[in-house]
Structures are given as structure tokens and as C-alpha cells.
């Protein structure tokens, strides 16, 4: 059993302030899905979401001394992410948050089903991760990550890995079909 499991958020922060980095790691792992879910709901671009989440994490660690130990850590980090989202929209000047989005942003804490936030399914992420990490061979795993993480074309992947283009495409097809079949089996894809 993990030694941090029975500790509350404030206890974990106290441990981190005393120098126990893993206490903070444990605490933030607990909230990663929650923060990602909010970020994912408000931004469309992959790079933007990544920057937003990483920037929020940096702000949390930088300002952790200012956190008052009042067992409201979740609200504190939510506020930080919300401010980051608003600043992001202001900075990009692409699409100012409309009233519906602002309403949703102001209501993210209550997790009510009528907000526009789509719940990320933890099990679905686990299923896909298990296929990528356990069922795909190292080469196929690398190809699928290059395709969807680095956004490379199959031709570019083939050049980088020094393999035929058809092998790369076949590998992507194989992996996606495997994931699709598993998701279908678990009821995540309707017919």
C-alpha cells in the first residue's frame, strides 16, 4: 500500500514543503485527470492543451508557498487553471469565451452533468494505454506515438525509422483496428 494513500491534500503539501517530492507527485497524479478534463473541454488544439496543463503545473509548484492549508487545494488549483484558460484566450485573441463557455468555466467545480464539460473516461484511457503499452510491440508503439504525438506523416515516420512506407501504414492500421475492436468489445463504440 502506498504510504501517501491515507494522507489528505494538506498533509501531502506539508511533506512536500519538508522536501518529500514524491508526496507532491502523488497529490498531482490524483488531480491530473481532473485538470486535463477541464483543459480538454475548453481548448481544441493539442499543443495548446499541453502548454496550458504544463503552465498550470508550473504555477502550482511556484506558488505552493502561498497556499493556505485549509483543505481547499482542489479549488485552489481549479482557480489557477481557470485563470490560465482566460489568459490563454486573451493572449491568443482567437475566440473569446462566450457566455456559455464562461458559465461552464465558472461551474467546473460542481461537476454537474449539465455543464458542457465532457467527462473523460478513466477506463477508456486505461484500455487504450494497456493496448499501447502491453499489446503492441515496441516498433508499433513508437509508430503510433510518432503519428499522434508528433503529428508526423507516414512518409516522415518511414524516413526517420528507415523502413518502407507500407510497413508504417500497415502498423498504424493494425494498432488502430486493435484499439477499435477492444473499445467496441467494452461498449465504447456504438454500432
Amino acid at each position, binding site marked *: 500500500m502506498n504510504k501517501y494513500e491515507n494522507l489528505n491534500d494538506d498533509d501531502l503539501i506539508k511533506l512536500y514543503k519538508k522536501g518529500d517530492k514524491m508526496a507532491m*507527485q502523488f497529490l498531482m497524479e490524483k488531480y491530473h485527470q481532473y485538470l*486535463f478534463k477541464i483543459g*480538454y473541454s475548453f481548448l481544441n488544439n493539442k499543443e495548446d492543451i499541453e502548454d496550458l496543463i*504544463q503552465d498550470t*503545473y*508550473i504555477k502550482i*509548484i511556484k506558488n505552493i508557498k502561498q497556499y493556505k492549508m485549509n483543505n481547499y487545494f482542489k479549488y485552489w488549483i481549479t482557480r489557477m487553471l481557470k485563470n490560465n484558460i482566460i489568459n490563454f484566450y486573451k493572449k491568443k485573441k482567437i475566440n473569446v469565451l462566450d457566455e456559455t463557455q464562461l458559465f461552464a468555466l465558472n461551474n467546473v467545480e460542481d461537476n454537474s452533468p449539465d455543464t458542457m464539460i465532457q467527462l473523460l473516461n478513466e477506463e477508456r484511457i486505461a484500455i487504450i494505454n494497456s493496448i*499501447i503499452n502491453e499489446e503492441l510491440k515496441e516498433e508499433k508503439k513508437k509508430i503510433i506515438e510518432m503519428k499522434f504525438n508528433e503529428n508526423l506523416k507516414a512518409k516522415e515516420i518511414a524516413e526517420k525509422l528507415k523502413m518502407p512506407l507500407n510497413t508504417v501504414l500497415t502498423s498504424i492500421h493494425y494498432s488502430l483496428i486493435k484499439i477499435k475492436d477492444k473499445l467496441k468489445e467494452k461498449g465504447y*463504440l456504438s454500432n
Partner: protein
Amino acid sequence: MCKEFEEKIINYLIGEIENENEKKNILKHINECESCNVYFNQMLKTINYTKETILYNKTKFDIFKIEKKIRMRKIFKRFLLGSSIAAAIMFIFIIVPYFKNISKKEVIEINKFNQFSDASFAIEYNNNENYFENKFANLEEKYLLIKEEFNE
């Protein structure tokens, strides 16, 4: 579903088809064939979920990486501050006096110049107000300035 469209649909969804006619053909077929339409939608969801999962993994919290980033940002800020201070000092002590000298050279028009035995000078110059006056210049900076004017 139609076997010949299985790979084509995936290639279309992952952006590997560049030919516009081929794209149109695939979309036309999807609209006409129900089973391919179902396959298309399932594959679209699969790709989106896979992208989402990979991004989820990539953005995971890593205390060591975050602390390193904070340290690097601090170093960069200090470097930026140091560079700004160095640039300001350089501007005050090198660039400003250099341009100051140039402007002096441009303004002063010397009519007469005499050097005495004690190394001091007597000069007569036009001060741009249309009258002449005599001035003794025994400061080193003026000596250099006048000397330069004469060398030209």
C-alpha cells in the same frame, strides 16, 4: 463492410490521402454504404480517443521535470536581467560619450588656436550665436577634441 475501403477509410481519417478525387470517392462511398458509414464513425472515435490518451499521457505531472523547468526559467530571467543591466551600463559609459564627442565636433567651429608653454590653450570659436569669444581650454577632453579638429 467493404474490404477495399477498410484501409482507405483509415488513411483518409489519419490524413494520409492527398488526392482530392480519391477523398471525394471515399466520402461518396461512405454516404452510400451503411456498413462503411458505421466503420467510418467508429474509426473516427477510435482515432480521437487514441489521440486524447496519448496527450493525456504526455501531459502527466512529473515533479522533477516541473521543478527543472522552474529552475531554468529562473536562470533565464536572471540572464535577461544581467544582460539588460550590462547593456544599460555599456550605453551610459561607451555609447553616450561617443555620440557626445561627435556632436561637439560638429558644433564647434574654431577660428584661432594658440598653444602656450604651460600646455594650456587659447581658442577663438563661433558659438553659433553669431559672435566670437575667446576661451581657455585646459581640460584634457577639450584638448583632445580640438586636437582632433586640427588633425583633420
